[in-house]
């Protein structure tokens, strides 16, 4: 997220192996910074500061520039995320179908603001510009699963189901 700051306290157990393997895979190619960051995020769930330092050391791209790229694109996260990622769609079709109510209901149910992670580390809530399932509006995704034609009640019920499962 663009407003993030990198974690100041580096986790002691940082495992450099995944990022090193990713760097090796892309070695010698042009324009690799974004795919390297994408795969690093896939491996760690977010972009740990230590991984960004490793990327800078290996590619020669200044750390400041890497940080600039990582904060420019909405996809990148500099903080760890919860077990489940909730994405509430705020696209045009969802907006006219009342996405604001869904966002409010989700924030209330999870007791977090969009962009934040719940205290138990179970959910990270995000709002996104469009999930492209406009005919099912209002829509949200939890991890890879899409839920359409939502109302406040459905939101509370779905969250409850995820909580019970965990």
């Amino acid at each position, binding site marked *: 997220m663009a407003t993030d700051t990198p974690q100041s306290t580096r986790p002691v157990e940082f495992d450099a192996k995944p990022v090193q393997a990713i760097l090796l895979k892309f070695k010698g190619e042009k*324009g690799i910074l974004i795919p390297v960051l*994408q795969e690093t995020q896939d491996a760690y769930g977010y972009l740990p500061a230590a991984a960004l330092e490793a990327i800078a050391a290996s590619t020669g791209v200044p750390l400041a520039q890497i940080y600039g790229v990582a904060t*420019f694109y909405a*996809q990148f996260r500099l903080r760890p995320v919860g077990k489940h990622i909730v994405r509430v769609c705020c696209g*045009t079709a969802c907006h*006219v179908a009342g996405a604001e109510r869904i966002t409010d209901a989700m924030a209330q149910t999870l007791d977090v603001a969009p962009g934040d992670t719940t205290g138990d580390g179970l959910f990270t809530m995000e709002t996104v*510009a469009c999930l*492209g*399932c406009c005919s099912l509006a209002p829509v949200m995704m939890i991890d890879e699963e899409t839920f359409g034609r939502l109302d406040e009640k459905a939101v509370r019920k779905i969250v409850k189901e995820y909580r019970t499962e965990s």
Partner: protein
Amino acid sequence: MSHPLQPNVLTRPKIVVGLGSCGIAAGGKKVHEALVKEVSKRKLDVDIDETGCIGMCFREVLVEIRDPKRGSFIYGDVTPDRLPRILDEHLLAGRVIPEWLARSDELPGSEDAFFAKQKRIVLRHCGVNNPESLAEYQARGGYAALAKVLQEMTPEQVIETITQSGLRGRGGAGFPTGIKWKFARQSRDEIKYVVCNGDEGDPGAFMDRSVLEGDPHNILEGMLIAGYAIGARFGYIYCRAEYPLAVKRLKLAIEVARRNGFLGERILDSAFSFEIKVKEGAGAFVCGEETALIASIEGQRGMPRLRPPFPTTAGLWAHPTSINNVETFGNVPWIILNGADKFAEMGVGKSRGTKVFALAGKIVRGGLIEVPMGITLREIIYEVGGGIQGGKAFKAVQMGGPSGGCIPAALIDTPVDYESVTQTGAIMGSGGMVVMDETTCMVDVARFFLNFTQKESCGKCTFCRLGTKRMLEILTRITEGSGRPEDIPMLEELSEKIKKGSLCGLGQTAPNPVLTTLKYFRHEYEAHINDKKCPAHRCKKLLTYRISADKCTGCTVCAKNCPVHCISGERKQVHVIDQAACIRCGECLRRCNFAAVLAD
């Protein structure tokens, strides 16, 4: 629909499940799983297959039965529970179930009107082919256009054909494709690039996603033909990372095409070699702008730069680059095979061929449609789309997303072509079409889009970065009841300056949603500012809540949940809201089980 079903090539019935993103979102995978189970339970002699977006998103999950003798039958709203009846009655007893039928070759279906005015070129295989099957693509003429250009045409002839067809950029700007290719061809360089812009960022638009998911080989073929025409060896597809299924199917299609000699060295034994790579975007709307997209592929922040030089002169890594939209490429193989004239036959004026739209919002039949240019908005909304949900009044249609505008009901007979749409103040755009009814507040819609562009502004140009922020603040205060009379001229002045002072399309078009709503719905702005009222009853802070004495049962739920304790009343007595203390949060209205809380 010109649905090349070719039932004659089938030897036994085939059951096809629509598994585009919307099909999956509606539960398509569960239907597919259940289908496999039910078919094996009944030991039916049928094939099971999947396809991409059929277009009828409003009837997902869609299951099509292709009968070798009787043709196609598409059932809508299919759930795992409904499958047994479909299998037993339709397949075993041969009896069609008319009440679930959306469309068929044999009987009238409930959704025939959805297809009647459509003309499918780009979408010709979407919802027909298995997108992961090269054999099916080839069986329907796939890669024949590539063979034709490599064997029979010079690059100049290809460019001439595309120019003659009148094809213009389908990303929204409408630049003639043939001319762009000609510029790229004329640029002298050993290395050139073809880039497919699949960074579909407009909220409310899913055309490119559906095409990439539903017919990936068609896009590869279009890019190959472009590569041959301009003299490029390399192509990139820049695809939104939010479209994982599209990325997966593209990568698979590239691998299969390479294995079968349609990509790689000396394609089809010609001197032409071409490679395609997929680049995943990382979530930045501005990357739909071509110079920002180039920066992003190069691994930088996606910020636009000044043009000229145009990318056809100096693009990716400073080499000549032709960047075309997904839908533009989707037209190319069809034009080569059917001829420029056939394409130019459709459409009006300088807008030829067809246009794909993602029809969404308060419309009965929302989905993916492809219509000939020149069709009127009325035909799209009332005939293809089936009118407004719940019989409400049509208010406006938003075209072109954050760069576009709202076209009011009075202009519903506007023909859909680049010039006519631009005249209304909206733009053709990439194809998002969001229909709004009387319950939509136009000031709120303008605020919604400004909120989007303000967040997505890359920050390079001051007018865009700060101007959109100021406009958003003004719009927000208008919707919250603190608007001032001078806000309207201020919005107009800011709009003009942002348009002039921005480098790229994002800033130059960001004020459009405000300008068009000011032009056609100024009275709504005035009602918000002068009367502190939202005519659509949409802006929360401008509503007055009261409790209907007839409906209130005195259950006390509202009073208990009111965060500021401004509702009073005894149990089983009518409750009353203290207007002076009310913060207009709407909690009482949401909590009331008897619809006794009214807002106006």
